[in-house]
């Protein structure tokens, strides 16, 4: 009995950790943009959904390798992010934060409305060639897609950490994030780094779209993954990559445990509810998150 309890808890935690890392991947797109440009993307979930639709559309063509679908998704998302920065967000520079939030909410509405009109409302499948042999760690069983998700997430989180700490461009981007005017004075092309930040967010969303799309199926509900981004980034701190990872892991484990232990009593839905309760508590006591930089406001 005791052993059963423990192994149930263990498998919940393992599954939560792997899902959590996949949340981190999507949250990374949010953090990258916020860190570099101070812009807030409430349409992150819709970005992921758009990437899923592109990948599924390309993969559905006869004889198309899955790699082509992934490359297409990345390319489209990068171009889309560029265009968004140019057309919508640049005119809003210097305006109140409410304006940026509402603009991305509006963008999200457009993106959710488009697929039913163009490719139809039915769920499309997007399968990666990874077999369906589940992966077993002790008592926990992980579907292969989650393992792929974990590997891709770790790869990218590592790559971005290296990029920001060591590469010349990464250092320049940190400078832009820290103080745009000083960065400009040091000869950094700020506009270009804004574009680069959006491009990186596009890449991350594209991969998130492929992975989440092949796990859940591609339809407009895929955008709901974006609702998990907020607890992740608030817990971790809005401008911290490490925070996005830790926040993702916490949210993954919390929702997995809540779903495992509470759902039988309250009739479902705790998965979407528990992370937000945790987030509210965090906002009350430590509003800048675990790793976020505390910003001091001056009049």
């Amino acid at each position, binding site marked *: 009995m005791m052993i059963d309890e423990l192994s149930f808890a263990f498998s919940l935690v393992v599954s939560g950790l792997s899902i959590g890392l996949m949340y981190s991947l999507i949250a990374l797109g949010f953090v990258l943009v916020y860190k570099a440009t101070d812009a807030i993307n409430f349409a992150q979930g819709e970005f992921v959904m758009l990437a899923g639709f592109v990948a599924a559309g390309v993969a559905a063509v006869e004889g198309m390798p899955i790699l082509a679908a992934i490359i297409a998704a990345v390319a489209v998302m990068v171009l889309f992010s560029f265009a968004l920065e140019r057309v919508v967000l640049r005119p809003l520079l210097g305006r109140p934060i409410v304006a940026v939030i509402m603009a991305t909410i509006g963008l999200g509405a457009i993106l959710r409305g488009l697929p039913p009109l163009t490719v139809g409302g039915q769920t499309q499948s997007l399968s990666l060639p990874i077999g369906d042999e589940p992966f077993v760690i002790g008592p926990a069983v992980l579907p292969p897609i989650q393992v792929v998700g974990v590997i891709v997430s770790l790869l990218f989180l590592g790559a971005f950490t290296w990029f920001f700490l060591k590469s010349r461009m990464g250092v320049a981007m940190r400078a832009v994030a820290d103080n745009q005017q000083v960065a400009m004075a040091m000869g950094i092309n700020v506009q270009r780094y804004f574009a680069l930040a959006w491009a990186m967010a596009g890449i991350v969303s594209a991969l998130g779209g492929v992975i989440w799309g092949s796990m859940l199926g591609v339809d407009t509900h895929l955008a709901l993954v974006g609702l998990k981004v907020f607890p992740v980034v*608030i817990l971790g701190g809005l401008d911290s990559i490490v925070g996005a990872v830790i926040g993702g892991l916490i949210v993954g484990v919390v929702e997995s445990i809540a779903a495992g232990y509470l759902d039988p009593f309250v009739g479902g839905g705790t998965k979407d509810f528990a992370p937000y309760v945790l987030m509210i508590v965090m*906002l009350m006591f430590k509003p800048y998150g675990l790793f976020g930089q505390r910003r001091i406001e001056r009049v």
Partner: protein
Amino acid sequence: MFHREAGVFKTTYAADMALYPLPIARWAVAGVALLFAVVLPSLLHEYYLSIINLVLIAIVGALGLNILVGYTGQISVGHAAFMSVGAYTAANLAVRLDLPFWITLPAGGLMAALIGAIVGIPSLRIKGLYLAIATLAGQLIIEWTINHVPAISGGAQASIEVPRPTLFGTELKTQGQLYFFLLFFAALAIVATLNLVRSRIGRAFVAIRDQDIAAEIIGINIYRYKLLSFAISSFYAGVCGVLYTYYLGIANYEQFQIVVSIDYLAMIIIGGLGSVLGSILGAIFVTMLPIVIRWIVEGFGSYFFTASELAGVSSSARLIVFGSLIIFFLVVEPEGLNRLWRNIRNYFRVWPFSY
């Protein structure tokens, strides 16, 4: 009597704050009142009155949200949840205790104000994006709670049927009767807001919006006023929810989901932030839009889509038009329809001798 001034000649604060700056304003208000109280209800068909009823309900909600977002500068993505609090409070009181609307309506508003102030507590420490996410959390948590606690939601499908409101012994059943019921509350909300924003409280709100730290330094208790703003705004939302419940005859959480919060934000952005007239114009615009889109889709949609696809088309088209309009107004005309109206008026003020 019908003249307009050719410039700003105000010499006292009282003149600057007057509700009727010129005699013509009195006549305009009287004309609009006559139009709504006598002309429209006697000329229009029930169906059109039902649309106007929806607009009247939306006006109450939009005014409330504009007090919070437009005047106090605190963002809320959870307005629809406050409406649901009001709606379910009133529905429970009306069904279980058999109370009349003149008790359930303020009770729903007060309950929403209480919950709104609680959700607003984080605004004391955080603002901007953090507050947007906190209110989003409020929306999701309230939605979940109503949906999962049968004591509130009445069990099956989380919906409660409410009896029609009765006034002096008559049941308000037809759209025409409901029209006057709703018109009264919409007018009350408009007058209350107009007076609120030119009072001490309204000016404190505007000071907090423009620079909260500076406002605190000149002696405004920003904690008190931020919470007050959340409470007042949620009171409007709660009343709006109660009115909608009486209009539909049923309280259902699906009418108060996050999409509705975004609709109301769209209303005040399209109409104009920080403006009473803007809230009204935005409420009219956003309420009419889906109806117009449905007419267009029903009229022309069959040329592009098959009958089975057509059902989803108007809701998708609505999302796209909505999103585009929000972005368009934010980028091109941040002050919304209210500004467009002012531009038109200013053009004609000196017409035909503009120079």
